[in-house]
C-alpha cells in the first residue's frame, strides 16, 4: 500500500543534536498507536540546511515545514495535521519580518531563493537508502557516462560546464582531470581522492552533503574515475564528522552491493573502488599534499607543489583531488549537460555554490545559491538579516584563509574573482556574519590563533610569522599596541603570503590584511585604549548603573564574587576582583550591567 503522507525528519548533525532521532521515534510510536503506520511513512533525511531552527520536520506531499519540533509536540501534530489535516501553525516558521507563520517550505525566503544542484536531494531522501537516491534519478548519470560517453567526452563536458573546484581554490575541474590523464604514469596507475576534510571553522557544507546525499558524491567520484582512468579512490573525512562517516560507509556498501562500485561496474567492465580514511583533527590536512601524506600514513605536512599533484600525487602517481561539493556537482552536469550548468552563475563562476551561513545572522544554516548572487541577498534575504536586530558590521568568507568584507561591499556578487579582488576568497563557502558585538581585531586574532595552532610548523614564515602576528595582535587587543605595530603587521603579512610553503600560510594574512584595510579605525581605537565592540577584556570594564533592581542574579552568576550588594538594593562590581567574564552582563534582565 502506498504511503499517503511522508514525514521527512531532518537527521543532519544539527538536528540530531537537537534530538531529531528521539522525535522520529516518538512520531513512529504515535503513528503506530493510532494505526497510521501503514499510511504514513517516517523518513530520516540528511541536513535541510536550516540548522538554526532544528529539529525540522517536513510533511510531504503537502510541503508543510515544521521547525523546532519537540517530542512533546508529537501527539498534537499527529492529531491535528495527520489525522484531521489541519497543519499546526504554532510549529511553523515565522520569518523575521513576517507577522504570520509560513506553512510551505518553498514560501520561506530562506528556501525560496535557493537553487539546489549539489544539494538536489536534500531533505527528500533517506541518505541510508540507496533506493531513495536511485528513485530520484541517482546513478543515471553514471549509466550515461559509462555507456554513451568516452572519458574524453566526459572531460570535455566538465570543461564546457565551467565547473571549478568548490574547495576554495577554484581551479577548473575539467582542466585538472585532463592534466591528470596526460600526466605520465609508469604503470598507468592514477588515483582519485575526495577531500572531505572540511576544516574551515564555520563551514559545514561538505558534511551536509555526505550526511544528506552520500551517493551523489560516490556517483561523481565514479564518473571522475572513469574519466581519468583511475581504479582506486580515496575519501578523507574528518573524524569530527562521525555521522557523515557512517552514512558514507553505508552508502559505499550499498553501492557495492548494487554493482555501482567495485569490479565490473554496471556490467561495463570498469573497475573502481573507494577507501575511506579518517582524519584526526588537523586543519592542514585539507591541503592536498598534506592530505595525501596523511592517506599514506605519514604526518600531514605539505610539500612544495612546483610539480603538481595531478602529475605526482598520492604514492607519487598522478592524482586528482576534488572536494565533496565538486564531486556532487558532476552527476548533474553529465545528466543535464554542460550547457544547462554553464547557464547558471556568472561569466567565470558557473553553477551554484553551497554556503554555510553562520554567526550573527537570523537564519543560520546551509544554503545553495547561483553564483553571482550578492552578499546582501545572501545575508539579508536568505539569512533574514542580523540576529537580535543588530547592525551589520562585516562578513567573513572563505574561512581562516579568507577575509572580511565590509558593508559598502555588500553588493559584491559571489564569484571567485570578485571575492579575491576584495581581499577575501570563496574558500569552501563559510559565511560568518558579524555585527557590532564583534571586535574585528579580536576576530582577526582569533583566526591567527587558529592558524597558528593548525600550522604544521614546517616552514619558517608560517610557523614563526603567524606566531609573531599573534603576538602583535594580542598586544593590540591588550591595549599595548602602537602605530608601528600596524606597519609591522602589514610587512609581516606580505612576506608570509609571499614565502609560505603552502596555501595555509599563503592565505593566513588575509583576515589581518582585510581587517586592517576595511576596519583600520578599530585598530586605531585599540591603540588608543578602546575596544569599540566591548570584546577585548583588557580594554573593557563592567559597571552596574542605576537601572539595577537588586534582583541579585548577577551576584549569583559572578564566579569570582566580584559583585557586591544585598537583594533589592543596587549592586556594585569590585573592579579588582572582576575577571571580565561577562556573566553578570549576560544574566542581567534590566540592562543594568554596562560594558565600556
Amino acid at each position: 500500500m502506498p504511503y499517503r503522507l511522508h514525514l521527512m525528519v531532518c537527521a543532519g548533525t544539527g538536528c540530531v543534536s537537537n534530538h531529531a532521532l528521539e522525535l522520529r521515534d516518538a512520531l513512529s510510536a504515535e503513528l503506530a498507536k493510532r494505526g497510521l503506520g501503514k499510511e504514513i511513512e517516517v523518513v530520516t533525511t540528511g541536513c535541510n540546511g536550516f540548522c538554526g531552527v532544528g529539529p525540522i520536520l517536513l510533511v510531504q506531499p503537502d510541503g508543510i515545514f515544521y521547525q523546532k519540533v519537540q517530542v512533546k509536540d508529537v501527539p498534537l501534530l499527529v492529531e491535528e495535521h495527520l489525522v484531521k489535516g489541519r497543519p499546526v501553525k504554532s510549529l511553523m516558521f515565522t520569518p523575521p519580518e513576517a507577522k504570520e507563520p509560513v506553512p510551505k517550505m518553498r514560501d520561506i525566503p530562506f528556501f525560496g531563493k535557493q537553487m539546489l544542484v549539489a544539494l538536489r536531494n536534500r531533505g527528500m531522501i533517506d541518505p541510508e537508502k540507496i533506493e531513495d537516491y536511485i528513485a530520484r534519478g541517482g546513478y543515471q548519470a553514471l549509466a550515461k557516462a559509462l555507456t554513451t560517453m568516452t572519458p574524453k567526452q566526459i572531460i570535455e563536458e566538465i570543461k564546457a560546464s565551467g565547473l571549478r573546484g568548490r574547495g576554495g581554490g577554484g581551479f577548473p575541474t575539467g582542466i585538472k582531470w585532463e592534466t591528470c590523464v596526460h600526466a605520465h604514469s609508469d604503470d598507468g596507475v592514477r588515483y582519485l581522492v575526495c577531500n572531505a576534510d572540511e576544516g574551515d571553522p564555520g563551514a559545514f557544507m561538505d558534511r551536509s552533503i555526505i550526511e544528506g546525499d552520500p551517493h551523489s558524491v560516490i556517483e561523481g567520484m565514479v564518473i571522475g574515475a572513469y574519466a581519468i582512468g583511475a581504479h582506486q579512490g580515496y575519501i578523507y573525512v574528518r573524524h569530527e564528522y562521525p555521522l557523515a562517516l557512517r552514512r558514507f560507509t553505508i552508502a559505499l556498501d550499498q553501492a557495492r552491493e548494487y554493482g555501482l562500485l567495485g569490479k565490473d561496474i554496471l556490467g561495463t567492465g570498469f573497475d573502481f573502488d573507494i577507501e575511506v580514511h579518517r582524519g584526526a583533527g588537523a586543519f592542514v590536512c585539507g591541503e592536498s599534499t598534506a592530505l595525501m601524506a596523511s592517506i599514506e600514513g605519514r604526518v600531514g605536512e605539505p610539500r612544495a607543489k612546483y610539480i603538481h599533484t595531478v602529475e605526482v600525487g598520492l604514492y607519487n602517481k598522478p592524482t586528482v583531488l576534488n572536494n565533496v561539493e565538486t564531486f556532487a556537482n558532476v552527476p548533474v552536469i553529465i545528466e543535464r549537460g554542460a550547457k544547462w550548468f554553464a547557464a547558471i552563475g556568472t561569466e567565470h563562476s558557473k553553477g551554484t555554490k553551497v554556503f554555510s551561513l553562520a554567526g550573527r545572522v537570523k537564519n543560520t544554516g546551509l544554503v545553495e545559491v547561483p553564483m553571482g548572487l550578492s552578499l546582501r541577498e545572501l545575508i539579508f534575504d536568505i539569512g533574514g538579516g542580523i540576529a537580535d536586530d543588530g547592525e551589520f558590521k562585516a562578513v567573513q568568507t572563505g574561512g581562516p584563509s579568507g577575509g572580511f568584507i565590509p558593508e559598502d561591499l555588500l553588493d559584491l556578487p559571489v564569484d571567485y574573482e570578485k571575492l579575491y579582488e576584495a581581499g577575501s576568497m570563496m574558500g569552501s563557502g563559510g559565511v560568518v556574519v558579524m555585527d557590532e558585538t564583534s571586535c574585528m581585531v579580536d576576530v582577526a586574532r582569533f583566526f591567527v590563533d587558529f592558524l597558528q595552532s593548525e600550522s604544521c610548523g614546517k616552514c619558517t614564515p608560517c610557523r614563526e610569522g603567524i606566531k609573531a602576528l599573534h603576538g602583535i595582535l594580542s598586544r593590540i587587543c591588550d591595549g599595548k599596541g602602537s602605530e608601528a605595530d600596524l606597519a609591522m603587521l602589514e610587512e609581516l603579512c606580505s612576506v608570509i603570503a609571499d614565502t609560505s610553503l603552502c596555501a595555509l600560510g599563503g592565505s593566513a594574512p588575509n583576515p589581518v590584511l582585510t581587517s586592517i584595510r576595511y576596519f583600520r579605525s578599530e585598530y586605531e581605537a585599540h591603540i588608543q585604549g578602546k575596544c569599540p565592540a566591548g570584546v577585548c577584556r583588557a580594554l573593557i570594564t563592567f559597571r552596574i548603573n542605576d537601572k539595577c533592581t537588586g534582583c541579585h542574579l548577577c551576584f549569583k552568576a559572578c564566579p569570582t564574587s566580584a559583585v557586591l550588594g544585598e537583594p533589592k538594593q543596587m549592586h556594585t562590581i569590585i573592579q579588582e576582583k572582576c575577571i571580565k567574564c561577562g556573566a553578570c552582563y549576560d544574566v542581567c534582565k534590566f540592562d543594568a550591567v554596562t560594558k565600556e
Partner: protein
Amino acid sequence: MAIKQVSEEKVREIVRRWGGREGFLVEMLQDVQTEYRYIPEAAIRTLSKEVGVPVGQIYHLATFFKRFSLKPRGEYVISVCTGTACHVKGAPRVLDACARELGISVGETTKDGTFTLEEVRCLGCCGLAAVVTVNDDIHGHVTTSKVPRLLKRYKGTEKASHGEADD
C-alpha cells in the same frame, strides 16, 4: 576510573583490522585512542613493530593530530567548539566558564579522572553555536550561565539520559 592495561594482543588485533597497512596508521591510532582513551607508549611500540614503521613517525602522528592524547583522558571529554561561528557567539567565555567550573585549564584532566577539557576547531554545527560536546553528546546554544548545569549532569552520576532538551 581505572586505566586499562595495554595489551599487545589488542593492539595487534587493531593492526589486523586495518590489514597492517601503513596508510591506515592514523586509523589504527584512532582505534587505540578509542580503546584506551589515550595513546599509550607500549601501543606505539607494538604498532611500530607490527606495521614496520619507525617509532618516531608514529610518535609524530600521535602528537601532530589534535584528536590524539599521550596522556590518559577523562571519562567525559568536554570539547568546547571554538570555530568562528562559536567564537562570535561567545565560545571563549564558555571555555573559561568550563575551566573555572572544573578547576582545570584546557588540555587537562580533573584529578578524579572524570573530565577532560579540550578545545575543538569547528564541529560543523555552526547553526547551533556555541557548541559543547561531552563525549558524543552535542549541546547547542550554550552560554556561560548554562555551563554549571550542563556539567552537573555528568558529575558523579551515570551518563545523562538523552532526550532532555538543552534549552
